[in-house]
C-alpha cells in the first residue's frame, strides 16, 4: 500500500472517529424514557435505524423524535415525551398489543407482556403541585390506571410509589399545574 493511501486512510478514519465518537461524549443528554419493551440503551442505539415508524404509529403521539439536545447518539431515535400524550400500553388503545413494537423493523422495541411493562416512574415536585399547596386537585390520582401507584396523604395530597408506577405518563400529561409538578423519569425502567 502506498504511503499516500495509508495517510489518506488514517486521515479519514481519524476525522470520522473524532466526529462520531467525541461529539457524542460532549453532547450527552439526560437518560431518555424509551417506548415500552425497548432494548437496553446501548443495544437500542445500535439497533434503531431511525426510521421513525414508531413515532408515526403511536396513537397518543407520546413517542417523539429525540433531538440533538437529547444527545448525539440518540438523535432521531424515539423517546417518550409526556408533554405530548401518555403511553396507553397498560390501559387504552395499545392494551392488546404495543403498536410501536409491532412496526419496529429492527427489533429495537419488542412487544412485552403488560405485566412486564415499565417505562420508568413519575416524580413529583410538591412545590409546584396544586394539591400539596392546599388546593383541591387530584387529577393525577384520577387518571392513574395503576391502583397503588399514587396514594393519598390526608385524603388530599398525592404520594407516588415508584415501584408500582409503570411510567405511562398519564399523570404528567394531565397535571394542570403550570409549570407541571410531575416529571416522568427513566428510573426503574424495564428494558429487554
Amino acid at each position, binding site marked *: 500500500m502506498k504511503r499516500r493511501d495509508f495517510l489518506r486512510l488514517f486521515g479519514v478514519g481519524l476525522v470520522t472517529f473524532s466526529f462520531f465518537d467525541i461529539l457524542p461524549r460532549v453532547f450527552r443528554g439526560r437518560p431518555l424514557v424509551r417506548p415500552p419493551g425497548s432494548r437496553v440503551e446501548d443495544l437500542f442505539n445500535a439497533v434503531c435505524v431511525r426510521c421513525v415508524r414508531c413515532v408515526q404509529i403511536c396513537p397518543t*403521539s407520546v413517542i417523539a423524535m429525540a433531538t440533538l439536545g437529547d444527545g448525539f447518539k440518540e438523535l432521531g431515535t424515539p423517546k417518550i415525551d409526556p408533554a*405530548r400524550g401518555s403511553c396507553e400500553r397498560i390501559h387504552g388503545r395499545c392494551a392488546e398489543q404495543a403498536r410501536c413494537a409491532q412496526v419496529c423493523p429492527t427489533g429495537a422495541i419488542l412487544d412485552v407482556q403488560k405485566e412486564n411493562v415499565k417505562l420508568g416512574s413519575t416524580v413529583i415536585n410538591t412545590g409546584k403541585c396544586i394539591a400539596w399547596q392546599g388546593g383541591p386537585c387530584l387529577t393525577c390520582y384520577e387518571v392513574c390506571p395503576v391502583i397503588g401507584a399514587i396514594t393519598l396523604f390526608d385524603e388530599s395530597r398525592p404520594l407516588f410509589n415508584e415501584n408500582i408506577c409503570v411510567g405511562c405518563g398519564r399523570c404528567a400529561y*394531565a397535571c394542570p399545574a403550570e409549570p407541571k409538578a410531575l416529571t416522568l423519569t427513566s428510573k426503574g425502567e424495564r428494558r429487554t
Partner: protein
Amino acid sequence: MDQGQPEEEKSKRSTVSRRTFLKLLIAGAAAVGGIMSLDFLYPKPTNPELRTVTPTTAKVTASTFSTTPSSKGASVVVVRGSASVKPAVLVERALESLGGVEKIVPSGASIFVKPNVGFYDKEAATDPRVVVAVVNCLKRALPSQIVAGESSVRGNDTEYALQVTGMRSIVGETGVEVRDLRKDQAVNVSIPKGKAMSSVNVFKTVRDSSFIVDMPRLKRHSATTITISLKNMMGTVPDSEKGRFHQVNLNQCIADLNSVLRPSLVIIDATNVMTKRGPTGGTMVELNTVIASLDPVAADIVAAEELFKAEGVTDPAASAGRVEHIQMAAELGVGVADRSKIEIVEVKIS
C-alpha cells in the same frame, strides 16, 4: 478525474457562486433557527384532540334557556327497581313522576345530552342503556334536534372512550349524533355571578343548545368527594379550562360553570354506583336506581346521600351536606341544597 481541468473552468461550471452560497446558508440557518424558536415560544400540544381551541370573541349569556330554580323548593324523584327491572322502565317512571317529558321539555327544543364518558372504563361511564332510554323518551317531546356529546378527562381520547364504553354504538343506534366535543369550536360565555371566574370557554354545541339533559353516573371522586350532575358539566369545557379550574379553585369553578350552563333536566344513573373510591377503581354496588330532577343541586344532594348510604356511612345526609361544590352552587342560586326544602318522591318497582 477533474484534476486536469484548470480552476477558472471549474468556477465557470459551478452553478452557484460562493457569495450566493454563503448568503443562502445564513438565510437557511436563520430560517431553521426561526422556526425552532417559534417551537420554544409557543409549544404546541401535538395530540390533535387536545389542541387548544381558539375561542370566538362573541360573549353570550346563556342562562336564560333553562328552567329557573324555584326558591320555594325542589322535587327529586328516586325510582328504585329490583334486579330484574330494566333501565328503560326506571327512566320512564322517573320522567312520568316529574310531570311527563312533554311538560318538561318545550317542543322544538334543541337538546344537548351530557353522559359521563370521562375514561376508558365502562363502569366509570354512564350506562349507555340508560342514555338510550332517556333519548327515546325525549323524542316524544318533539325536539328540533338531540345531540349527545362529551369531552373526556385530560389525556384520554374522547373518541376511543366513546367507542370502548359502547356509548357510540349503542346510543348511535337511536339516530342521535354522539359528538366528540374536542373537535367542536370553543366559545366564550360570561359568568355574571361568578366568584372564581368572570367568563369561561365552553363548547359551541352546548352553548347553542336550548335544553341540557345532564346524565351522570353516581360515583365517588377523589378531589370533589362525589361526582354527580354538577361535576359532570366539566365535560362541556375544553382541556385548557379544565386545567384552569384546578388552578383557580375547582369547587368554585364547578359552581360558577353551572350558574351559566345550568342543566334543565338531570337524570342520574344509579343502576351501578361507584363507592369508596372514584372516579375510577372504586367498588361497584348495584342499586338499580334512577334519580331525576329539574334541579341539579337538589338532585346531587339526594344522590350523594344515596351513595353514602350504600357505603354504610353513619350520617349520610350530613356527609352530603358537606360537599363543597354543591353548597357553592346553591349559594349562586343554581338550585336548592337545603334538605328540608327538597321534596323526595320515592317510587319502588319490583
